[in-house]
């Protein structure tokens, strides 16, 4: 397809460009998985909510395995794309070449256009907005909440376990209140509202273009279970005055609301619930490459490439 060629898939991509051996890909994957596992297992977790160490270890092991499955699944999908026409070499070698091309494209004069297209068309999903405002809003809430949650997780973990930053650790520290309590709750609430809108649309409003199948129900249900589970867990923590949740502050407003619904005795099972929520979240990560949710990787690529191609064709 000509539109894609100028950007990422040059038709003249020949072996002569220097074909990296396919095994390099697997070495890179092994390094990435080992690095992630090492980081996950070696962090001190001094300030984690869960008290039961064996549960924590279980979670960390499951998370590491799930991350490996996620990466391998993604790679398997991408290798399948590489069986298509236009490129020389084994699928592994093609994938490496293409990744290096993509990196070069990102760090080229195309960067500003690429970034603008990515933010406007892939993240803000501008086309979806023109099709249906409510559909767009529901999705933006899910996407935005998910992305915010991901960023928060990384930032908070680094602040806590690498820098031992007290405003993030102290139970009334400003960073703790604003990020670990408020921001997480807002991100979760965004997802919850978005998911409820999507579910109502799918099951109640049922517009003609929707065909609800297992793939759709599974993705929505999985997300919903994790998000609601997270809030129930927070409510249980507040019920049981778990360290970090003892202050009953209004910053964790959604968790607080859930704590009114769950019985106070629920706090006793906090550690078990934490493990369940953790394992489910890890399984969700592993599920992404094999589900409809893989679009969160594939769609931004197609949207950005198409947007960039259109933009560049228009300028020519």
């Amino acid at each position, binding site marked *: 397809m000509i539109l894609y060629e100028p950007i990422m898939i040059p038709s003249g991509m020949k072996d002569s460009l220097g074909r990296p051996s396919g095994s390099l890909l697997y070495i890179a994957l092994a390094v990435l998985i080992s690095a992630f596992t090492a980081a996950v297992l070696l962090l001190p977790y001094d300030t984690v909510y869960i008290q039961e160490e064996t549960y924590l270890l279980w979670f960390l092991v499951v998370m590491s395995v799930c991350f490996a499955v996620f990466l391998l699944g993604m790679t398997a999908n991408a290798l399948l794309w590489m069986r298509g026409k236009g490129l020389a070499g084994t699928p592994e070698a093609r994938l490496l070449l293409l990744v290096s091309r993509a990196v070069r494209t990102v760090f080229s004069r195309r960067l500003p256009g690429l970034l603008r297209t990515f933010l406007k068309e892939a993240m803000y999903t501008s086309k979806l907005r023109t099709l249906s405002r409510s559909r767009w809003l529901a999705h933006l809430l899910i996407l935005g909440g998910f992305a915010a949650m991901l960023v928060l997780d990384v930032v908070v973990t680094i602040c806590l376990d690498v820098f031992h930053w007290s405003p993030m650790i102290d139970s009334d520290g400003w960073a703790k209140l604003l990020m670990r309590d408020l921001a997480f709750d807002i991100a979760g609430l965004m997802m919850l509202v978005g998911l409820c809108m999507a579910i109502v649309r799918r099951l109640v409003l049922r517009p*003609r*273009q929707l*065909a609800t199948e297992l793939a759709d129900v599974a993705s929505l249900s999985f997300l919903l279970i994790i998000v609601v589970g997270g809030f129930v867990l927070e409510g249980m923590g507040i019920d049981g005055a778990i360290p970090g949740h003892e202050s009953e502050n209004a910053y964790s407003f959604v968790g607080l609301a859930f704590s009114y619904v769950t019985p106070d005795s629920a706090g006793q099972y906090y550690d078990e619930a934490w493990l369940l929520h953790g394992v489910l979240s890890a399984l969700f990560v592993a599920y992404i490459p094999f589900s409809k949710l893989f*679009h969160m990787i594939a769609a931004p690529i197609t949207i950005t490439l198409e947007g960039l191609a259109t933009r560049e064709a228009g300028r020519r």
Partner: protein
Amino acid sequence: MKRLDISKLDVAALLGTDACVRCGECTLTCPTGGEAQDVELITPRGKLLRMRDFVKRQYGLRARLFGPKGIEDDELEEFSRRVYECTICGQCKVVCPAGLDTIGFWENMREFLVANDLGPLPPHQQIVKSIENYDNPWMQPRTQRPGWSKRLGKEVVIGDSLKERHEVLYFVGCTAAYDPNIRAMAEYTARVLARAGVDFGTLGNDEGCCGSTMMRTGLSDSTKGMVLRNIERFEKAAPALIVTSCAGCYKTIRQDYPKYGKLPAPVRHITEFVGDLIESGKLVPEARVDRTVTFHDPCHLGRHNGLYDQPRSILEAIPGLRIVEMERNRDDARCCGAGGGVKTAFPELANDISELRVADAESVGCEVLCTSCPFCYQSLKSAIASSGSEMEMVDLMELLWQSLQAPR
């Protein structure tokens, strides 16, 4: 068990099967899957997900671990038929929120079918034979190609661009050259060009089929020779500009030829070229045409090439003409149903879709349905007849010609 060869599928198409979010926006406006038949498998979502299923069954992780699964012949045949029922109108590309270049996908999917002996369909094969033997899809001898210009008599002299150089090379295209019902398109194009004093010529007998039909049915690999032959003739003619009146030839020469070789001159559609002639005052439509007209955007002009304003600017220049827009216009225009080889293989389906478009035009109360593509012209004209409409089908150059006559 058939093992599908996926090496003909574009990387982008394979990626697209994973990027489709099953949103179904494309199913609402797909003229053939959604509107005329309500068959999920023809819709973009249906085709992409079925393709994904086939590919996963034979090349996915499970297939690699436990061996590929077979696909029944019936299933493959049904898939092939459904893929060929798509008119490649590009409506799905306009709405797809996952940014899929479906136009490219569908053409590529047909190449994949051909590589796996699943396409093209028997009616397409007849046309292919004709192109291979006669250099046109209509089984007409090469010597008849310039026959369209007979009615012009001595009024307009058509230059031979292979004998002497002319500024503009008019690429007539097989349909306007041979189909007696459509020859008027070429005729009025020539009249308009001559009226503007354009120095133009054609390739006469030596014009070869542009290859569009072959490319749209998945036979791109077999078109290379034809394309290169035409490019060679273009080089010999050495014009400053190539002009086509056929939207299909325009798309093919503009978008596909550069993949095979360098074009010696830029190519423009007649609506772009004539629009400029009017703007620069070289053509002045003076006679009033007191009629109500609506313009049907050919897919190959509009969605495939972004030419929406040019034909409208010509209509706006005609005095007296009342222009009304159909509810679905520009990039939302409903396809006429003929493209992508559908009219050849599924004439009834094509006519059903054309009748929907005629109804669109009827509903805005126009007398004249105007377009600028021989295929749209042909299909809409027969759908006007089959649906008992009173509207008149007119080519844009013919309408313009009416206004270029001395005012009465």
